[in-house]
């Protein structure tokens, strides 16, 4: 049973994408095991950072939580509601409480709509369905309010996405996500495409909004320093599973999983004196493809601390220290 202040509880979430056709002559259906049994909870007002390399299943996790993909297994409980079992109509109502912000603000904004219309759109749709009670005038006012709040002048409301810079477009995306006053925001690499100076502005905006509205974030990034800055807790993903999850400070001070250790040691630090002295754990090999399930630890091929046991058996995520869970036999007795 989830604790009282839990907003999102994800249990054994699985998203297996079928690939290729089932062979005519009884060939076996093949799958991409993009997300393969993920567990986490996020408390109200917290930020759970999700890091990991390309293709490890971060976006798929967020999309499966949002039910943009219907998960092939597991449960997603948002504020006491089990989303995986909702029908389409109830899902729309539930989604009001959960909005997404994407990496590429350009691709996610309709180029033929003005910024004002883009921000108003979710309110108009929900008003039309009778799911929020807002008049046209109220929607108009809220658009202006939202624009000012995310740092866009309301005089820009008639401009089109291409007339804005990348950072400003991301602000439009954030305003749109805020429009329905959700409790949970699923942020999929919202700052990855931005320049350093703009990235800092947008990260600060996310923090300010959280303080002001008590927002809860699932925040995806591949930059470990960004994740450290924004997150209360951090989950490290590898090949469709969570390898390690803990409080942010703890994870960065004392990473347990050999993969987390390698990730942290590989991330460059903008300080030549430190870079000169650093010892890197250089991993060999590439991230394997998630097109098969393996009996052993998914990190086995690249792990420099692997043991015989790791090849045959898959370690489960277990608490190694209070609040610090890791899926590695080094820490399981």
């Amino acid at each position, binding site marked *: 049973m989830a604790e009282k202040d839990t907003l999102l509880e994800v249990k054994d979430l699985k998203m297996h994408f079928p690939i290729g056709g089932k062979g005519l002559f009884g060939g076996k259906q093949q799958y991409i095991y993009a997300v393969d049994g993920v567990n986490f909870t996020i408390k109200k007002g917290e930020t759970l950072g999700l890091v990991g390399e390309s293709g490890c299943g971060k976006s798929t996790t967020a999309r499966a939580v949002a039910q943009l993909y219907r998960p092939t297994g597991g449960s997603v409980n948002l504020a006491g509601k089990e989303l995986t079992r909702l029908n389409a109509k109830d899902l729309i109502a539930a989604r009001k409480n959960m909005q997404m912000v994407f990496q590429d603000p350009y691709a996610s904004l309709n180029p033929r709509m003005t910024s004002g219309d883009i921000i108003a759109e979710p309110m108009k749709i929900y008003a039309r369905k009778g799911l929020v009670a807002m008049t046209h005038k109220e929607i108009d006012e809220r658009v202006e309010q939202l624009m000012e709040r995310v740092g866009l002048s309301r005089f820009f409301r008639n401009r089109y996405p291409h007339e804005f810079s990348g950072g400003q477009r991301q602000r439009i995306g954030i305003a749109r996500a805020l429009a329905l006053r959700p409790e949970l925001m699923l942020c999929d690499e919202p700052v990855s495409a931005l320049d*350093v100076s703009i990235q800092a502005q947008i990260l600060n905006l996310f923090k300010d909004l959280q303080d002001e509205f008590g927002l809860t974030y699932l925040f995806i990034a591949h930059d470990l*320093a960004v994740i*450290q800055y924004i997150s209360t807790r951090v989950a490290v993903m590898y090949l469709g599973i969570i390898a390690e999850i803990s409080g942010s*400070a703890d994870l960065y001070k004392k990473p347990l999983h050999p993969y987390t250790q390698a990730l942290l040691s*590989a991330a*460059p*630090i903008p300080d*030549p004196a430190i870079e000169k002295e650093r010892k890197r754990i250089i991993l060999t090999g590439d991230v394997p493809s998630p097109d098969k399930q393996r009996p052993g630890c998914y990190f086995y091929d690249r792990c420099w601390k692997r043991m015989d046991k790791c090849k045959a058996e898959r370690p489960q995520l277990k608490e190694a220290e209070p609040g610090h869970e890791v899926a590695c036999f080094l820490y399981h007795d």
Partner: protein
Amino acid sequence: MTEEIILQVQDLKTYFHTDEGIVKAVDGVTFDLHKGETLGIVGESGSGKSVTNLSIINMIPNPPGKIAGGQVMYAGKDLVKLTINELRSIRGNKISMIFQDPMTSLNPYLRISTQMIETIVLHQKLDKKTAKAKAIDMLKLAGIPAPEKRIDQYPHQFSGGMRQRVMIAMGLSCNPEILIADEPTSALDVTIQAQILDLIKDLTARLGTAVILITHSLGVVAGMCDTICVMYAGRIVERGPTTEIFDKPKHPYTQGLIKSVPRLDKTSGDRLYSIRGQPPNVIDLPDCCPFYPRCDKAMDVCKRKYPLSKDVGNGHAVSCWLYTEAK
């Protein structure tokens, strides 16, 4: 790194003539590259990093682009003035380039062996068999397992990180004097990035190659480069030895940039420092300091004239009125 200068870029200007106006993508860039030096060019998107380097090897699409002024001196010749044929013998041979997306320079329809052997035969006048042996050696150096088998595969049969290794092997196969690497690891994961940067560092040190490394990552330049040029709106606003730039940044832009990156080794506190506003559009820029609208220390003169580069010692130079007597 030695005292010997092998490439001298002087007041380079590259403009694009577009419907919206003249894009001054590179507007008076000057720097020297020494033998064996690794020089980093950092700056935000659109600041002119790629155009600078495409201009060096004279690969600016014309129209709409044109090198509007300046010199690129290499081996006693101004590359800007060379004929296509003269350039061909230098590109890929004496000066080679690797890009962010290896697929822009790998031909998807040709085996790796075909592509590598062609380049080596063309530039080094070796027979095919020797060229293939050399190609296999380079792939091995670049950390491709079983290179004698993999060399006959096609680019799509390699992962992103391995393709980047192949690119590096190709780029270095003719022992170039200069390797220009434009965001060679930006599309890669950090663990792969670490491998590739290690590889570039190791191979170029062994072969004595000078490197121009373009990146927007301050972390990457901190670990890789001897010297750093910071670009903003088509100009180099500050340049100097890496430790100088990080320990004693002079330009308010460089200072702000360094402060606004969240760091792994420090908690950034509640708020990140951030530079206000956004980079300017380089169309029809007035001839003043392009950073002044975002600068906390802007003065009157900054809005009127662009500051000349001022040497502040230790090979450290900055273009900012704070360090220059206004005339």
